[in-house]
Structures are given as structure tokens and as C-alpha cells.
């Protein structure tokens, strides 16, 4: 976990340690409820969003933006157009709440397999690919600036 930004590592460890599937789902639903906190403001992007912001493979129509900060780090914003895309919202909130201010070198290396630590190994292939796609977009924004 040393390569993962500290705040993200803490969240992943906390959620991964919940062995009860239903309890874990409750935590993830509560996390998704905070989506407005990471939703892209109109000052950053307005609909219709450009396709290059769209997360590949995500069935919930997720989009990712990164805004450069004066200290050289990034602030991430998201949108999920499918109102039923709760998992995509939860993934976005986890990344949005933990990656602000993190070193770009670490953000570029956030492992996509944290999806399975957060959501469990039993999620469907398509769902897993979509959630990993959100992480890949975030990684790429950091890589572009390194």
C-alpha cells in the first residue's frame, strides 16, 4: 500500500476489512450519497460533456475531470449521468475525497485492483471494468502531467 496515496489507502483498508457483504454495501451506498461533493461544477464543465472526458467501459456514463492546483497537484471532479449508477458514484467519491493534494507520482500508480478490495471480488466483469475505467482516467490525468 506504500505507493497508494495515504488517504486512499486508509479508506481501502477500512472498507476491505468489512467482511459482511451487506455491511460493506451500506458503507458504499452512504459513500455514493456524498456524490454532490465531487460532482463537476459548471465552472469546470457543462453538458453535453466532451467524449474525451467519458470513462471507457463504464455502463453508468461516468466522466472525469482534473483541475491543476497552484501546488502542482490535481483536484478531481466527476459526473455519473445514470442516476442508478451508485457504484460509479461511490468509486468517484472515494477517489475525489482522497486524491486531492496527493503527489502525482502516486496518483499515476493507483492500482485498478482496489476496485475488488472495495466492492468485492464477486462484482460482474462489466461492472469491474467500468469502475477500473474510472481509476484509469484518474491515473492518466496524473501521467499526462509527469
Amino acid at each position, binding site marked *: 500500500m506504500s505507493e497508494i496515496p495515504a488517504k486512499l489507502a486508509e479508506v481501502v483498508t477500512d472498507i476491505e476489512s468489512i467482511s459482511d457483504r451487506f455491511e460493506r454495501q451500506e458503507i458504499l451506498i452512504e459513500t455514493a450519497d456524498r456524490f454532490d461533493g465531487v460532482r463537476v461544477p459548471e465552472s469546470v464543465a457543462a453538458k453535453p460533456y466532451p467524449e474525451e472526458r467519458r470513462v471507457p467501459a463504464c*455502463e453508468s456514463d461516468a466522466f472525469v475531470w482534473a483541475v491543476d492546483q497552484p501546488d502542482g497537484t490535481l483536484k478531481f471532479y466527476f459526473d455519473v449521468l445514470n442516476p442508478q449508477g451508485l457504484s460509479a458514484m461511490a468509486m468517484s467519491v472515494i477517489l475525489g475525497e482522497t486524491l486531492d493534494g496527493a503527489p502525482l507520482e502516486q496518483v499515476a500508480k493507483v492500482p485498478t485492483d482496489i476496485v475488488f478490495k472495495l466492492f468485492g471480488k464477486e462484482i460482474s*466483469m462489466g461492472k469491474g471494468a467500468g469502475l477500473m475505467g474510472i481509476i484509469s482516467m484518474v491515473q492518466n490525468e496524473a501521467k499526462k502531467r509527469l
Partner: protein
Amino acid sequence: MTLPIAERGYVHPGVLVSTDWTAEHLNDPSVRIVESNEDPLLYPSRHIPGAVQVDWTHDLNDPVRRDYLKKAGFEALMSRIGVTPETMVVFYGDKNNWWATYAYWVFQLFGHSNAKIMDGGRAKWEKEGRPMDRIVPEYPATIYHAPDRDDHKIRAFRDQVLKHVEAGRPLVDVRSPAEYTGEKLHMPEYPQEGALRGGHIPGAKNVPWARAVNPEDGTFKTAEELRQIYEHEQGLDPNGDIIAYCRIGERSSHTWFVLTNLLGFSNVRNYDGSWTEWGNLVDVPIEK
């Protein structure tokens, strides 16, 4: 304005129920409402009052082999959700009933024909402002005697698909055009979707599954509109021997449902091995 189900010209309109009908049967003991979703967080977040969840991964799949549950597992599932062979099971779910039709299809492998799909799925119910809650209901366990799973009529396996291709019979690839052409597997930074090769099974027509629904409310298109797509545009014969596939068989179960139940096609099978099997097989034909 979406036409009422009975006026859409389906061959078997009785396989669909409306949200109105469902709302009137929330407390009907002869009906069990079942939610089946792509997103595992949706049901626990809230659901139709009294609905139970059938989760594709946990409830319908064998935990070890890549296969569906067998007779004993199906009987245990039906017992747990309080269903008898006489119970009418009404499925609904997210993504235009994508996974609801998958669950419906698996139930048909065990002959539970008293099953329906709620037209428009979860999105339509929510949009109409109908009640939802977070209470996970418990129903008295039932004793359910299921027949052995019957794969031969509506399920296709890889060797059968290979013979089907060699015989030049029709297939429907219901994935996106980018998956069909194989372009997706070559996109940089794109998560790999479990296949070593991209493309499609030779001869397959590409009809993305969601073309069968009205995008504004998730209801199924009329029979005339569906015939225009599948019969006139793609030239599929309602009496033909047809195999549908996608990535793992979930989206193609939606198309299977449309062709079999709404248009009355007589011989449609779902190849659930789909591209995650075909795209990894050694020395099978692939078209790009």
C-alpha cells in the same frame, strides 16, 4: 407516448406487466417481485416494497465452475425467496431490464414459465415516483421441486456454435459496434474485458441489445418497430435457428427475450459463453 402493452402487437404480450399492474399487486401472495441488477448497490439502497433480490453472481452462478446453478441450488433459491412452482415471478431491474431478463432466462432453464418482466424496469418505476423502501422482506420458506436444468432448447455451447457457423446459420452479436469490430480491445488504457482476440463470430449480425427499448422510458418498442430491426433490416427469419451472444450472455438474454417472447421467434438460443469464451478459444474462426 408509449402504447399500452396489449396494443403493441407482441406475439406473447403476457410476458410483460406494466408498472401500474405491479403497483396493484404489491401485496398479492401469488406474486413475487424480484429485482435483478447490474449494480449490486441498487437493491440495498431501496427497492419496490416487498421485492426480493436475485443477484446474478451470488444466486445464479456456480461458485466454482463457470456455469449456472443446478437443480438443488435452484430449489434452494426458490425456497429462500418464498416461491412455489405456481408463484408468478415478476422481474425488474436497472439498465432497461438487462439483468432482469438474464435472471428470467436462467429461470426458464428450470422451466419456471410463470414469469414476467416489468416493462420499463426500475428506472420507469422510479421516474413515476412510485414507492420504494429499504426493508428486505422475508417470506416463509417454500418447498420447490424443480426439474433438472434443461440447457438444450434455449442455451448454446461453443461446439454447437462452431457447427452453427460452419452451417452458415444466423447469429446475432448484441454488443456495441466497437466490441463487434474488435476495436475496443485495441483502445489504449482500455480495461481488458477477458478476451485475447477482438472481433465477432463469422456471419453474426450486429444489433446492439438496447435498440429494442425506448430510450426515454426503458419500455420495449412495439412489435412493428422490433420487426423492422430484426426481420427487415437484419433479415432474421422468425422460424430460423438463431444464436444470440454478447460478452458473457447477459445482454444477449435481453435480445433472446425480445425475439422469443415479443416477436415469437421459434428457435433462439443464448450462447452465454459468448465473447469471453470465443475470443479466448484456440483456432476458431473470427471475423473483424
